[in-house]
């Protein structure tokens, strides 16, 4: 028993030594260019399960633009420039009503406010980038991409390939969205609203959200955010959503703090 465990130990130590040697060799063999490509592909692969839902949402947004009376060129212009589904969907009824442009601008701004919070999380990872790179990749941020990025890189510590991984996530999200949106623009009048194609996007987000709420502090925040979102459903400019995010965050923090204070006595971890 003793002997075998000793041999196990030595062999596993050898294995670790060999492994790290192999890793060093591999890193030496992999050029920076190859490493970047690999990390980009990892980003694309990480978010690939969610892409069908993103496409479905894009599809619905494309259909909605055409059904609001946009011409093909206007609808294509909107999807490729604005690239913000919820803001576009909120703007459409206002456009139909010929609301003043500044009202539509403020509506779009309000609905996108959650991205200010997201950018506070993600921007510190990439302070070293050039001005135009920051502007471009900031503009490309999506809701679901944020979740994948944060689960892969929870800290701001510099890591090789982080930028490429983020590019993979954001680019895949963009392609999936635009494919759906362009399809919706061209098929707009063929797909009945009643089919509820957009619900596929809701289901995709449900799949992203469920593993996150296994952590109790997150669950506390999600329950609070859900309640606020329902209670404020009729607020203008979807401002209730911002309220939901803020109250949800506070509840998660309160839960975390409460747990830390009691961890000495209960020892509960999750």
């Amino acid at each position, binding site marked *: 028993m003793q002997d075998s465990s000793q041999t196990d130990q030595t062999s596993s130590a050898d294995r670790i030594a060999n492994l790290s040697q192999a890793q060093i060799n591999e890193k030496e063999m992999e050029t920076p260019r190859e490493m970047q490509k690999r990390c980009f592909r990892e980003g694309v692969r990480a978010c690939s*399960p969610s892409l*069908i839902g993103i496409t479905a949402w894009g599809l619905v947004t494309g259909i909605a633009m055409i059904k609001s009376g946009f011409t093909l060129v*206007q609808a294509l212009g*909107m999807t490729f*420039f604005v690239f*913000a589904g919820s*803001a*576009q969907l909120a*703007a459409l009824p206002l*456009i139909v009503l*010929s609301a003043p*442009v500044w009202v*539509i*601008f403020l509506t*779009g*701004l309000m609905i*996108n*406010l*959650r991205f*200010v919070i*997201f*950018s506070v*999380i993600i*921007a*510190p990872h*990439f*302070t070293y980038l050039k001005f135009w790179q*920051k*502007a471009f*990749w*900031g*503009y*490309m*941020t999506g*809701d679901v991409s944020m*979740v994948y990025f944060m689960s892969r890189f929870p800290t701001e510590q510099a890591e090789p390939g982080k930028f490429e991984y983020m590019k993979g996530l954001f680019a895949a999200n963009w392609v999936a969205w635009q494919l759906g949106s362009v399809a919706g623009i061209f098929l707009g009048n063929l797909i009945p609203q*009643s089919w*509820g194609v957009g*619900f596929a996007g*809701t*289901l995709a*987000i*449900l799949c992203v*959200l*469920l593993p*996150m709420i296994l952590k109790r502090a997150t669950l506390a*925040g999600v329950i609070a*955010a*859900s309640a*606020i979102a*329902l209670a404020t*459903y009729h607020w203008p400019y979807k401002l209730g*959503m911002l309220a*939901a*995010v803020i109250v*949800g*965050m*506070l509840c*998660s*923090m309160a839960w975390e703090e409460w747990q830390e204070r009691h961890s000495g006595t209960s020892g509960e971890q999750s």
Partner: protein
Amino acid sequence: MSNLDIWAVIAVLTLGTFLTRATFWLVGHHITIPKRVHEALRYAPACALAAIIVPDLLIHHDHIEVSLTNPQLMSGIIAGAFFLYQRSMLGTILLGMAVFTVVRIAS
């Protein structure tokens, strides 16, 4: 709205996307965020996703409806359970859309 008005709307909404998403990337390093705020922000994406989908699941005919005839809710419950069991996103979306369609037509 005239063609020009629509392009004006597209221009201002593009500006809105850019301002909300990219401003902090460009000026953020001049601003220090307190550590506590930073910790709280980790929970923001989950809360935002919940705030997007929970009304989608529960609000039917413009009010909260918890019933067997709410197609979104039925689909969400069955598809969510399937996902926790199988961890397949594509399967979950296909099953969810099937349940959604069946309940929608049946009710």
